[in-house]
């Protein structure tokens, strides 16, 4: 039982980094294959395509950030001695990581699809690049909200 709390924290960190990372990988992959299609015909659009392809990658970064915050909180990083974590505290940290894990996973895939559609849009109308960036950025809002919630919850847990 003495390591259960720390195990739950590690589980939460792994879920945040893992799920958000997988979502980002799928999203970037979807946008990437569409980008490759457009660039086969028009290599000059590389800059615009790269920008749109990179957008779904942010959820993976958010997941990694939350994972770091969680494991830093219990002293697993930095070479110092780890803090004693109770089962309920560990459970709290695990749940605090979940918004970023779940919303990150789903929003990254949704953002990848939106980016893909916008890459197709700039293939035909390169003059609409500004609008093409805004549309997938709207999806980002919810990943940012989930990140904020995870940070607030993690800060609220007293060890």
């Amino acid at each position, binding site marked *: 039982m003495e390591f259960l709390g720390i195990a739950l924290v590690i589980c939460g960190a792994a879920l945040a980094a893992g799920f958000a990372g997988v979502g980002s990988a799928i999203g970037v992959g*979807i946008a990437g*294959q*569409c*980008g490759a299609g*457009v660039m*086969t015909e*028009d290599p000059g*659009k590389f800059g615009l395509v790269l920008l749109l392809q990179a957008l779904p990658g942010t959820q993976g970064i958010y997941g990694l950030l939350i994972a770091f915050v969680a494991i830093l909180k219990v002293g697993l990083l930095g070479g110092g001695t780890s803090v004693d974590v109770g089962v309920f505290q560990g459970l709290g940290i695990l749940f605090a990581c979940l918004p970023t894990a779940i919303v990150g996973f789903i929003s990254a895939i949704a953002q990848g699809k939106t980016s893909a559609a916008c890459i197709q849009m700039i*293939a035909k109308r390169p003059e609409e690049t500004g609008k093409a960036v805004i549309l997938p950025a709207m999806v980002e809002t919810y990943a940012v909200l989930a990140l904020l919630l995870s940070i607030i919850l993690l800060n609220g847990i007293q060890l």
Partner: protein
Amino acid sequence: MAQSERYGYAVSRLRAMESRFVEAPILQRMLESEDLSGALKVLGETSYAQWMADGGDGRFDQIVEAELRFVLQETHRFVPDVELVDLYRIPYDFHNVKVILKSAFRKASGGSRRWELLTPLGTVDSGDLITAIESEDYRMLPFGLGGVVPDCLALWEQSGDLLEIERRIDGQLFKTLRSLAAKSSHAGIVSWIAARIDAENVRNLGRLKRFNSDIARVTSFLHKGGHIAIDQLLSIYSEPFEFWIRALTFTDLGPTLGMLSSKDSDLEAILVDMERALDDYITSVIHRYRYDPFAPENILRYLWMKEMETKNVRIVLVGKSNGADRNLLRGLLRHV
């Protein structure tokens, strides 16, 4: 990658290829040019230029065909399911079979063969089709034609009825297309084939009206599987053409037929207008998928739009070579 996103690369590439379509401004410039040479000079600024190096003014048909052939081959290379491109190319195989049969009939009555009418756009090499039909090895014919072609040859011997032969071959074509579309399990593709059947049925109805054919004969010329029921089409046959538009208003065909200049009493002019409206109808059915970035229907949409583009280019070039009126030509152009 999920099944639904498999078409992302292909659809995106086609979107980029769409930017090279010969659209209204280029067609307008071609229309306004003095003669055929002027129109070809404008066409030389487009993707057709690569086929114009060794083509003289009179060879524009080969230029147009080369462009379409290149697009079909290119698309075949990168689409996830090549069956979609083949589905699009099958009507060209049936066209080739018709040409070969008609050449055989001409030859039998002392005429010459018309191999120049064969197209290389089909899925089967036209040489193989010729070999299969001339050597009477019908098992080598694809798409169920092995059963239809001998029947057509027997029918020619008995009655010489070319219309009936065309009907049988078209019937087999639509049966094949329907079966392949159903196998693809994409609703848009099934719907597009149904729209093509509708268009063919209405086209046949118009042609038979011109010949004043009796209703029993008309029935056999309407193919199953369209959006519009055969009974509904038969019910309007005996009515004047103006009534057809009103009767078909509540079908998918309504909006495009409604744009016809129905005041024109000349049936020939109406039929020409109707040809354009039917092509626009087929375009409108597949156009519904243009905003879905992963829809396989976009493959057919691109190929169909490319065919409409080549049709427009051909209309302008033929018109220019004949000295046709610009406004008349403008009215014939399809929506791209």
